[in-house]
């Protein structure tokens, strides 16, 4: 009868212990980032792998999401004679919520999983041990540039997602359904507030970037060093980072509303 309670207790202890280990790991990544020499070459390579190679999927997805929002928004608004508000509806949905969240989920699937798999695979093939034996800290050379790259590219990809989505909304609402282009942009401009909406979107995407970078590198670095471990690290990165993004999004939104 006590088994479920005991199991819940053990689960809670394991969760807290895991969070503690992750916090220690985050501390070692932060210290590595501050320690010379700066790994600029590695950082640029990681920005290319994480950011540049995600441009197509983020841009394409943004355009598709914007087009759907444009179509759905227009069909709903036209019932109330409020179709001139399409720019505001599309813009606010994207900038405040959909942009950072969907970008976070897309980048987790494309780049976060690859990041975890690469580190776990280096662990399984003893490349990280090889670095230690050469007196090179693998967190400094391999992990920290990856985590920092994720943190830096997430807001830029978020901006790309929003811009292409606004383009998608414009293409459907204006070019396809005949809404006036000036009305679309006037509605967008008058409803979006920089401090509340754009800055909030940027802060969310920075938080998501830090979160995905940390989860992906931690899961890769602590993987079981074999093929099954690489696979498990990849899967758990996508699951944990995706769910965490959704939960964190709620808290940031709630806090933003309380302390704007």
């Amino acid at each position: 009868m006590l088994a479920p309670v005991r199991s819940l207790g053990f689960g809670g202890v394991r969760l807290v212990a895991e969070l503690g280990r992750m916090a220690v790991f985050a501390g070692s990544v932060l210290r590595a980032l501050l320690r010379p020499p700066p790994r600029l070459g590695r950082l640029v390579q990681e920005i290319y792998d994480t950011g540049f190679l995600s441009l197509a999927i983020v841009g394409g997805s943004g355009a598709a999401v914007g087009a759907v929002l444009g179509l759905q928004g227009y069909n709903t608004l036209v019932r109330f004679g409020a179709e001139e508000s399409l720019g505001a509806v599309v813009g606010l949905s994207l900038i405040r919520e959909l942009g950072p969240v969907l970008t976070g989920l897309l980048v987790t699937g494309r780049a976060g999983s690859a990041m975890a798999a690469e580190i776990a695979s280096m662990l399984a093939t003893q490349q990280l041990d090889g670095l230690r034996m050469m007196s090179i800290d693998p967190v400094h050379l391999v992990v920290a540039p990856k985590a920092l790259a994720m943190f830096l590219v997430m807001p830029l990809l978020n901006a790309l997602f929003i811009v292409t989505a606004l383009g998608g909304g414009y293409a459907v609402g204006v070019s396809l359904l005949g809404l006036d282009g000036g009305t679309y942009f006037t509605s967008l401009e008058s409803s979006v507030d920089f401090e509340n909406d754009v800055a909030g979107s940027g802060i969310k995407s920075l938080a998501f970037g830090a979160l995905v970078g940390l989860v992906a590198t931690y899961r890769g670095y602590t993987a079981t060093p074999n093929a099954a471990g690489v696979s498990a690290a990849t899967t758990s990165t996508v699951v944990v980072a995706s769910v965490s993004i959704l939960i964190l999004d709620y808290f940031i939104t709630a806090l933003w509303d309380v302390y704007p």
Partner: protein
Amino acid sequence: MHAAAPSDPHVEARDVGLSFGNRVVFQDLDCAFPRGRITVLMGGSGAGKSTLLRMIGGLERPDRGSIRVAGEEITGLRESELFRVRQRIGMLFQGGALLDSLSVAENVGLPLHEHAGLPADAIAAEVQRRLDSVGLPDVGDLLPSQLSGGMVRRIALARAIVRDPEIVLCDEPFSGLDPLNVRRIEALLVRLNQRLGLTLIVASHHVTSAFRMAHHLVFLLQGAAITGTPEELEASGDPRVEQFFAADREAEAEVQAWEGTG
């Protein structure tokens, strides 16, 4: 049988105990590795050969006991202090452990790039010298994925010695290689020992190579070590050692017979 401890041990393990869960790997392990000599660590799969090498390199900590490298106790050192000790050690990992994302030349030059403070052209010249020394002068621009298993081992050996270590640890350098590559790697290791006076500790279950190259053998059995020269171990009369060597001779004969009929 325990032969007399080497008079000038470069690496020593004393009263080492290590368990992974319920599995006891070492129980009061005592062994020493003489300076400037080739010692081959032997034993069946799971005997703890690779684990002992990892403990000497500070990658694994024993539950108890002492590991001394060049007179320095390493078991209590922090990771940053181990980096200093590891400057004396080069390690050849079983799969090479070359970084996939770097070219062969970048892999070999990485320790110099990180620690030596040399200009790029001096590093390039040193890398080329090391590639020449392992008989692979033209592969600097290739990626590790473009090399064969034997070539990867030789490049990994070039990287292990590029900072002129005193001690080189080799984890199963012959496993999975054809006889020609086994002899190549073996000759390279012997040459390193003879020309540079390096202390080589080689974990291997390749009995023939071990008897050809070893000055000293450490045979790991049930968590403890039996040590001596190859001749001493062969004449030891220890049934467990004899059984291991006999099984190897039988396997060798079977392989030769199978190759003869193929």
